């Protein structure tokens, strides 16, 4: 059997599939890309048993065949090849896959493909079109707040739900919380779901390759997104996300509005001297118009900086993990941000001040 495929398409399919393929799995075939050549199309599949991807590429072939090749081998090989290549020939020869290019030829060892699992499909569910951009923006705005530990599956997930006319993305590791609201495009519908945040990273990467609109379908256990012959399927968590809205303070005792870039720079300077817990000390005094940021590390030294801020409310002294605060700026497009404090043991609320205000971030203080 011989099969001819566009080099560009092959490279794209392999690079998309390679990152999803399992690493350090007990089953060797899971770290492979399965190439399933049928009449006129080749399907590239990879899965880590959490997320599965399937990529369809048109080919010219004189037969059919299935083979599994280690993902990192084929990917490293192709990524080094000059992009001027046009057409590539794939040919399975006695346990190997021969990849013939104009100036180079690779003979890749294959792995028996029988053990490669079927990627489940979302059955009994409606397929709805959904703008890709909304999903990408939503996931990227919050995923870094999810918990990296797997003790509580719902906290290491991105919670997606519909609230009146918006689609809401939320994630929290219980120390900070990020929420992003995006107006739900006309006609789009979404079921509430908990997507493991690691999977949301995979999904986002795939969505970026999928074009402006995806077909989304979900049931109790799975969600899948599909467009242009690419489909990504992820497990979803069957659990309950805490009703976090009750934690969001309704008012504030102290408010400071600062230029985002000012705060970013100050925190960068401060973090040089922060301790192992990234502790940074904020001292705000609206009456004296002072906003001081202090860090101290007995092994390194200390730093004290002032930030220009418009403030009102009561004076406050409070400590935070510097990293938790700076994390939020990646989701804020506005030039200035508002910091709202509610006393010593209450979360700090960070919001963009102008422009797109659909983002909300909460950080808990440190207790010493």
């Amino acid at each position: 059997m011989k099969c001819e495929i566009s080099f560009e398409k092959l490279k794209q399919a392999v690079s998309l599939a390679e990152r999803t393929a399992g690493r350090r799995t007990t089953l060797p075939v899971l770290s492979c890309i399965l190439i399933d050549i049928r009449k006129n199309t080749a399907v590239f599949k990879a899965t880590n048993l959490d997320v599965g991807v399937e990529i369809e590429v048109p080919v010219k072939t004189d037969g059919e065949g299935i083979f599994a090749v280690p993902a990192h081998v084929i990917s490293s090989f192709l990524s080094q090849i000059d992009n001027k290549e046009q057409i590539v020939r794939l040919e399975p020869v006695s346990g190997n896959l021969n990849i013939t290019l104009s100036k180079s030829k690779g003979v890749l060892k294959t792995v028996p493909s029988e053990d490669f699992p079927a990627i489940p499909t979302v059955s009994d569910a409606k397929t709805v079109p959904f703008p890709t951009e909304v999903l990408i923006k939503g996931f990227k705005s919050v995923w870094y707040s999810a918990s990296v530990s797997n003790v509580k599956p719902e906290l290491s997930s991105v919670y997606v739900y519909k609230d009146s006319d918006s689609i809401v993305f939320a994630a929290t590791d219980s120390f900070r919380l990020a929420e992003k609201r995006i107006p739900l495009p006309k006609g789009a519908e979404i079921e509430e779901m908990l997507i493991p945040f690691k999977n949301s990273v995979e999904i986002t990467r795939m969505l970026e390759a999928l074009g402006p609109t995806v077909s989304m379908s979900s049931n109790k256990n799975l969600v899948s997104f599909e467009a242009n012959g690419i489909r990504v399927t992820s497990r979803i968590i069957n659990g309950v996300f805490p009703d976090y809205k009750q934690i969001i303070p309704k008012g504030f005792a102290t408010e400071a509005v600062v230029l985002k870039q000012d705060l970013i720079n100050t925190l960068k300077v401060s973090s040089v001297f922060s301790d192992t817990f990234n502790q940074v000390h904020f001292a705000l005094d609206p009456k004296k118009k002072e906003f001081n940021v202090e860090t101290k590390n007995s092994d390194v030294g200390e730093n004290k900086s002032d930030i220009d801020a418009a403030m009102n409310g009561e004076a406050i002294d409070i400590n935070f993990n510097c990293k938790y605060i700076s994390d939020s700026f990646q989701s804020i497009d506005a030039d200035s941000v508002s910091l709202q404090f509610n006393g010593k043991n209450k979360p700090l609320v960070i919001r963009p001040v102008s422009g797109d205000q659909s983002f909300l971030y909460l950080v808990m203080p440190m207790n010493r």
Partner: protein
Amino acid sequence: MNDFSKMWQTALIEIETAVSQANFSTWFKETAILRSEDGTVYLGVPNSFTQEWLQKKFHNAILRILRQMDEKVRSLEYVIVKEGSKAPNPKKQAAPAPTMSMPLQDFYISKDDNLNPRYTFETFIVGPFNELAHAAAQTITKTPGQVYNPLLLYGETGRGKTHLIQAMGNRIKALFPNKKVFYLTSERFGNELLTALQEGKARQFKEKYREYDVLILDDVQFFSGKEKFQEEFFHLFNLFKESGRQLIFSSDKHPNVIPGLEDRLRGRFNAGMVLDIPEPDQESRAYIVRAKCATYNVTLSGEAVEHIASTIKDNIREIEGVVNIIACQSQFKNRELSLNEIRNILKNNTKPKKLLSVKDVVKTVCEFYNLSEETIYNKTRRKEVVRPRQVVMYILREDFNVSFPSIGEKLGGRDHTTVIHSYNKMKEEIKTDALLSQEITQLRSML
């Protein structure tokens, strides 16, 4: 070890020899037999990937092995097991994070029962005013469905109705893990019904509620004047009652005085236990203030506690709000607040007396007597209109001190003597007519 896990252990030993080690540890690691019914074995699997693959690749092999052990096994079904919270790995746990964590554990409202875990009997403050309701609630949780079915608690907002009925749900859930408890507000019940009717899924809606052993419905006064909801609810009510399943309700007034409630429904509420949660007495209020202070970790002088308890009379939620503000302020100032400061907080944070227009009074009275508002302003002398009109005049004069001529003018240009006559007539009748006096008390609370 139960029979299922023993059976599965034995089966796994056989499976292990039949498949490769890699396959075995990938696909069978987190599996278990959940239950077996009528020859069908339900196998718990961690995710759809495993389900799909076991079904496709190993289904027959597993079934054959199970059948060798137990001839009755006919088929095999897969169930995706909900991933529970894992116990943290003690070795990997780093030094305790110095950042405080959000009290998220308080905010898990399970979709299966809608109950808020924060509402428990332990946090419910019992005083002379609510001890009867509390006792009845306690009794019911011991044998749900057997005594006091249905239970209806009524009382004004902020008296702890929701707390008590949710605490019952939480307690029943703890005592009887097999009983399915469900809490929702009447408004949500109505909305769900509406959606179900629009989508032609009325049957699924009914089926859903039939599953529950204990149904807790908050704020049933919402059904007032909504016939379709009452109809649907009536059937559900009968079903629960007949099958001895517990119903628990709350309302802001006695079912007899909820306007626009069908008589048959009213009768059914009354057939169970209807209990009032009245205004808390001074002593209980003081106790509540102290208890709330303790949870917020603030100390208040006896004088301050008494002052708060005597200023806020009828609403526990308001007490909670004020204590919250005091806690917040004293934390900032880092000292105990003076009585004067507390007086100021109270002044700024208690509900001001409501300002009402004549129109509002007419509207409320008309709703109560089920009349259209115009009739009050019209010149009709029909008996069913005259009486409510007189009630309006009486309330405006007695409670709001409006002058007789302006009452007359605002109610469709009547002479002030007509108003004086009506006022005096009502005043006299109230003394003898118990029903009328009850109606007026009720109306006052609605304004």
